[in-house]
């Protein structure tokens, strides 16, 4: 009980309090602990723990091969890669002129070759897949299903077009005409009357054209309908407001969780 319960809780409480309140104390030793020592301790622990992870990986892959589980052939690649990386890291440099240690970063070594020509391209391939996933996810997100999805679609289009050179070439007039047409669609879906729709669209186009001509609107006037300005407003106001509220929630969540740990209220980490 003492070793499995009380001591872990005590360690969490003491180190947690020291890390939290150390930020308010101007004492070099505490500062050094909070800023450097504590994180270095964690790094040292994590470095040793990698052996556990490595052995676990090897064990799992070997089991797969020996029991001929589904997809066991892929495990051969995992085991081969594991052994090759160990050989390149600890036993064979591939370039006798390079010292041990620096061989992981120096050119012309087996380790660097593996990194440059196998590891990096494979990572880049996975990263590149993201483009296709973004496309398929965007399609689902932008599909018009309800008011919120429509709002998201319109905001997305305004931001995407407003941020590229094409957006600054589109005049405010054009956007106003578009708005009149969208208003016409709304009128038509509410009243289901072609005459009302035609009158609304015609009057709208006449108002926009005559107002623009009489006041001599340039490309970017009225500013509120100019896409680069509009996207900036959407980005800096509604978007930032939403983001900040989520950030505050996250901050409070992290704070409350940390305090629960420090005070020993949350003890799930010792299995309670």
């Amino acid at each position, binding site marked *: 009980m003492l070793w499995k319960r009380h001591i872990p809780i005590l360690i969490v409480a003491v180190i947690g309090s020291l890390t939290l309140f150390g930020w308010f104390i101007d004492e070099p030793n505490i500062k050094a602990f909070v800023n450097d020592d504590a*994180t270095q301790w964690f790094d040292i622990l994590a470095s040793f723990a990698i052996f556990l992870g490595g052995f676990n990986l090897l064990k799992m892959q070997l089991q797969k091969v020996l029991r001929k589980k589904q997809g066991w052939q892929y495990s051969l690649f995992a085991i081969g890669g594991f052994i090759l990386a160990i050989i390149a890291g600890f036993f064979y440099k591939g370039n006798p002129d390079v010292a041990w240690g620096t061989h992981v970063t120096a050119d012309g070594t087996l380790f660097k070759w593996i990194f440059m020509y196998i590891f990096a391209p494979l990572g880049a391939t*996975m*990263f590149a897949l993201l483009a296709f996933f973004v496309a398929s996810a965007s399609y689902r997100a932008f599909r018009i299903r309800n008011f919120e999805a429509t709002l998201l679609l319109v905001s997305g289009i305004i931001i995407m077009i407003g941020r590229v050179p094409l957006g600054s070439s589109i005049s405010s007039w054009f956007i106003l005409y578009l708005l009149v047409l969208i208003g016409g669609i709304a009128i038509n879906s509410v009243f289901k009357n072609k005459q009302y729709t035609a009158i609304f669209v015609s009057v709208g186009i006449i108002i926009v054209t005559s107002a623009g001509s009489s006041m001599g609107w340039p490309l970017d006037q009225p500013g509120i309908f100019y896409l680069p300005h509009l996207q900036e407003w959407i980005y800096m106001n509604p978007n930032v407001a939403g983001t900040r509220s989520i950030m505050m929630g996250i901050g*409070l969540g992290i704070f*409350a969780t940390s305090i629960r740990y420090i005070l020993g209220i949350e003890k*799930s980490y010792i299995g309670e």
Partner: protein
Amino acid sequence: MNDRDFMISVGGISLAFLIYWFAGHPYFVTERLVMFLTIMIFSGTLMFYIRKARRGEDIFLRDIPGLKAIEEAVGRSTEMGKPVLYVPGIMDMDQVETVAGVIVLGHVSKMTARYETTLNVPVSRAIVMKAAQEACKESYLMEGRPDMFHDDMVHYLTDEQFAFAAGVNGIMVREKPAACLYMGKFYAESLILAETGNSIGAIQIAGTASQAQIPFFVTACDYTLIGEEFFAASAYLSQRPELIGGVKGQDMIKVIVIATILGGVLLRLLNDIGLINFNILQFLKVT
């Protein structure tokens, strides 16, 4: 500790701090006083509500669809005879989100033990692997099914972000889990994982405080726990009064923050038009 003792302790600590402050407060970083007081007030509020909950006062916790859906997802996997895949993020135990992810894993593994469903937990950090193994082991023991637990249900893949994503994708495509749960800290791999899960028709529930990844999860998953909902998961799933009290405390802190924002705007306005000579922004600035 009863209420009287608690109040005496709080009063004692406050008095001690006041004495320390008026004695010249050696070693204290004076510029951070506002932050220090804020932490004290917030901690006090949290503790107040936790104590209230412990006394047995009824505290309302709104339904969080994503958390309610976890049991449904495990049930669905059981009915389909397919495994549950749980990914506790890609970061180490020094991240609160990973810790929260491992806590939720404890609750999920209780459900899988109860329903006798296979659980598969690939991890990207060795320390997380050990912590997650312990959490699962305890859950299976508590549910009276230690026979169903085996260390390999939590297994290490790699520390590398995209290699991990490739490994998890491989598991998804081969094993076709019926439920995929992503709870922890994620980066760009979030969409790769969630879209692959979507393509195999799994029910997907995500929880993260990684702000940039929330839109991806919202798009690709069936349910997403956004920020604080994710941190409230432990309270919701365990229904322990002190944890629920903490969530209520968190809500009250939010009320304090909103009041402070409104008060700050008012004070700033009064300062700008010259009615008061007090700059709230300068006062709240932490160096």
